[in-house]
């Protein structure tokens, strides 16, 4: 087939492209991803019983704000990586900022704490299961985020997969924070972060395989 014939074929009867198809794809993916992750959380773990009392503590909201801010940064990165030729811009900064803020808070908490409770602040009662729970809860969101990316055109598949994974991890961590009783900044800065990084790494590894076009 000659190139001019191919052009004729591609242009022939090509329908108008819906202008909001890009946005709709992400809205759909985020909707289903959030729904799936929350459903899994509700069925599997349930919401902590003292949630009403916990919601009165500022640290409860800091705990929600941490993955929420990472979710925003990861979404920003994913949206930019979905389109050819769009630079990441300030997205890496938007991802790094909440992590640095949480680490600063963690250091401040550890420095101000009595030496004998520092261990408790870092490991809490659930450090062995927390990253695993977050990574598992992120699975529905992970599938949704990669589906969204797959239908677009990522030209940097490792980063695109990693951003999708981080997006899913942040949703998983948000859901998990409704169940998890831990409130200490050192715990969140290590184990929550680790839980969110697991899907990010998996996404980065799978990206070149799954996101080809």
């Amino acid at each position, binding site marked *: 087939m000659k*190139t001019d014939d191919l*052009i004729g074929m591609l242009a022939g009867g090509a*329908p108008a*492209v819906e202008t909001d198809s890009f946005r709709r794809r992400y809205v759909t993916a985020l909707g289903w991803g959030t729904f799936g992750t929350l459903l899994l959380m509700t069925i599997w773990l349930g919401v902590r019983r003292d949630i009403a009392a916990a919601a009165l503590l500022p640290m409860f909201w800091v705990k929600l704000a941490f993955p929420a801010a990472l979710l925003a940064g990861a979404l920003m990165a994913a949206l930019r990586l979905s*389109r050819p*030729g769009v630079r990441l811009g300030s997205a890496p900064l938007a991802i790094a900022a909440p992590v640095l803020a949480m680490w600063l808070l963690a250091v401040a908490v550890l420095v101000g704490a009595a030496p004998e409770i520092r261990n408790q602040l870092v490991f809490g009662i659930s450090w062995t299961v927390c990253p695993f729970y977050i990574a598992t809860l992120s699975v529905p969101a992970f599938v949704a985020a990669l589906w969204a990316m797959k239908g677009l055109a990522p*030209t940097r598949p490792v980063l695109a997969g990693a951003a999708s994974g981080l997006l899913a991890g942040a949703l998983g961590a948000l859901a998990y924070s409704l169940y998890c009783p831990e409130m200490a900044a050192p715990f969140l800065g290590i184990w929550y972060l680790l839980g969110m990084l697991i899907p990010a790494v998996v996404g980065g590894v799978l990206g070149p395989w799954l996101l080809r076009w």
Partner: protein
Amino acid sequence: MSASASENRLRELLLRGLAGENAAYHQFLLELSGFLRAFLRGRLGRLPDEVEDLVQETLLAVHNQRHTYDASQPLTAWVYAIARYKMVDMLRRHAVRGALHDPLDDELAIFAAPDNDAGDARRDLAVLLAQLPDGQRLSIQHMKLEGRSVVEAARLTGMSESAVKVAVHRGLKKLALLIRSSS
């Protein structure tokens, strides 16, 4: 025509094409193919036989991925990223190491000058089209090659109108995958 004049002209043609104006879209692809050919010919000095295949593969990618173009974005950057992605992908498939060492490369090079002297494609897309499942193949044939309307294509294939549209869309995406796995 300067690169920025080409950017403006092609961008306007593409936007009209995305809005459903087929003649503008046809003109866009035609002019784009000249720029892609010159760009790729300049970079595939060691693989001159691959140029026309890659022009075709990139045009198909531009078409399949056209919904990812954001009107506020420079067309130069978008086209360059797609062309580069397809070129690197092809070089990787051919296991050509070190073929892409061009640290000075920049995206403005894409609309530098057109080359409308089309060589022969080595890979015949018509052969790959024939490998598509019947629904996709027939939908593409009726709508895209014979220029029939959706209504006619639906009647000829016995499929619904929306199924025909989906089949065309999926068929062209499948074609891009066939290209990747055939080379």
